[in-house]
């Protein structure tokens, strides 16, 4: 069971990284135009 001492902090850390990444995307206006972003992938340039 001692492995939990390592695994639990690791899982929390990974989760936190995901959360921080999400907060960064919100701060940099990436959810302001979902339809436009979905269409932009079709543009060539």
């Amino acid at each position, binding site marked *: *069971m001692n492995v*939990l001492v390592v695994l*639990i902090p690791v*899982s*929390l850390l990974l*989760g*936190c990284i*995901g*959360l921080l990444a*999400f*907060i960064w995307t*919100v701060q940099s206006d990436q*959810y*302001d*135009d*979902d*339809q*436009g972003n979905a*269409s*932009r*992938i*079709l*543009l*060539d*340039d």
Partner: protein
Amino acid sequence: MAAVCPACVAMPDIEDIDTGPSLQFSVPTIHCAACIGKIERGLRGVAGVQSARVNMSLKRLTVKGPVDPAKIESKLTDLGFEVYPLDLEALNSARDMIGRSLLMRMAVAGFAMMNVMLLSVAVWSGATDATRDLFHLISAAIALPVVGYSGQPFFQNAWAALRVRRLNMDVPISLAILLAAGMSLFETLNGGSHAYFDAALSLTFFLLIGRYMDHRTRSAARSAAKELTALEVFNAQRVVGRDIQTVPVADLCVGDILSVPTGARVAVDGVLLSPAALMDRSFLTGESATMDVVQNAQLQAGEINVGAALTMQATAVGEDTSLRRMAQMVETAENGRNSYTALADRAAQIYAPAVHLLALLAFVGWALATGDVRHALNVAIAVLIITCPCALGLAVPAVSTAAISRLFAMGYLVKHATALERLAEVTRIVFDKTGTLSEPCIDVPTEMNPEARAVAKALAQTSNHPMSRLLVAALGDTKAAIVEGITETAGQGVSGKWQGQTVRLGRGVWLGASFVGLGLKIGTADAQTFDATEAPRKGATAAVEMLTLPAEIVTGDAERPAQAFAASLGLPVTANVRADEKLQRLQAMSEQSDKVLMVGDGLNDTAALAAAHASMAPASALDASRSASDIVILTESFAELPLVLKIAKLGSRLSKQNFAIAAVYNCIAIPIALAGLATPLAAALAMSASSITVLLNSQRIRYVS
């Protein structure tokens, strides 16, 4: 500041470029990736543009750089897009802070839910004693701060409702979240076997998804409504001595002399100083024919000058104008609408007391039966958590979000929160005629020869007068003749030289003919007249045919044109109705327990729009009418009106189905909870299953046709 070297002269320019002012445009016809590419690539070539970015969700274009807005407008028009400049101040800040904070709270709740769920799964699969307590402690350390942060929107709403001694859906939700967290903490500290941290978090997470989607659709509608207001002109031209100043309407005083250019709207009430003028009063009274007025005639705010530029003297400004008086009538009529209780609130008023009573009974029952207060409290809280406040909280927002975003894509802007629910109950439709069902058009006589048509087109093309534009549209793909030396006499007509003859297009009087309307005179031949009539708006005929509800036209127009038009659509009509009579008529209908949908655009419809059970106005309507209506129609065509009614009806049916689904889950879950058999696992399963069923059921509104 004097520049001492060439480099210094260039400096301010560089600064300008760095902080480049950003311009905002509304481009309503953007609909695909090709449009984005075309606009952004096209604008890259315009001098001064640093960056151009299209926001397709809001159908808006932001341009950065020191560039003349007129250049961008003409470039976009060349590319084939309608474009309207937007006033940044009217849009105030483009950022949506509430949406952002909801998104952040949702993300944090989602993160915490996943981590706690991971730990909970271990407990559910059989972790015991020290391991279980450790896992519960870690869960508590994650869940408590997150509940405190993410749950705030619910706590605030619940508190706001409780303070005025009312119950809304947020009260049982907040109670369930707080009690679940509190009881779980107590159990954890005392080494208990059940902790509901995952339930508290998933409740918060699921409900925040609903809140965020709801906010998202509403803010899209709100920003489109703001764009409409930003398009409205709030300036007037004041004549001071020989100068003309452009001043805000709010700054005008009684006695000011104003100049009203052709095609502009009169801003305040006043008297005419020019010898004569031609006014379009259709917005005020519904009359389709233009009015000839002479010096000293009374002009009302809202009339449009369709003749030559005129001057007038203001006699009433601000609150005293007839426009404002009309707006006050609207406010009175609107009070009735605010008393409408939304479906979700009605459900909460039944649900909240029932659940709280049930939990209390469970507590008292178990405490009396076993004498174990801690166990009794656990059962009571399990009842609160397991009664699916989640599915109930999502039942209405999930449907209305899907419906509103579908309607927005069709060009119908739902402004009012309960508009769809009221629209679903409508039993009768009343249409305004002028500007709503009908649009002005010009009849080109069939006996007119091709040359005359070509000349008429050449002349009409050069003028911006509304009549000329209608004539160009009526002539369709006629090829314009080569007419030279075209000059426009303001308010009278256009003249030029064609094959050595003088050709003139304009008012009958100006052509020396006996008729008053628009006519064409070639050389010395007799003038030919074009009849101004009305055609049904695009899609109106089809929409009226498809309607299953009784409909009628109530108009301020004269008997003859009203009858002729109504006959072409096959609807009953009442003509010569004044604004207050329209209002009385609607009130009489609602007394006969008819729920009326009013569709209108003019100032004379405004009070009726506000008093009706539900109301719609086209985007071309006056600002006052648009703000009085629940739904603004952004498209030209009325063809989809029946579908809108259908979507509203289905929406209210789906909301009720969602309540039924939640009730079925409750019928299964409540006995289990009351029996004291509920576990955190059962609660998690019930909550997720019911929420997902409700969300999926709501999506069905996207496929109605």
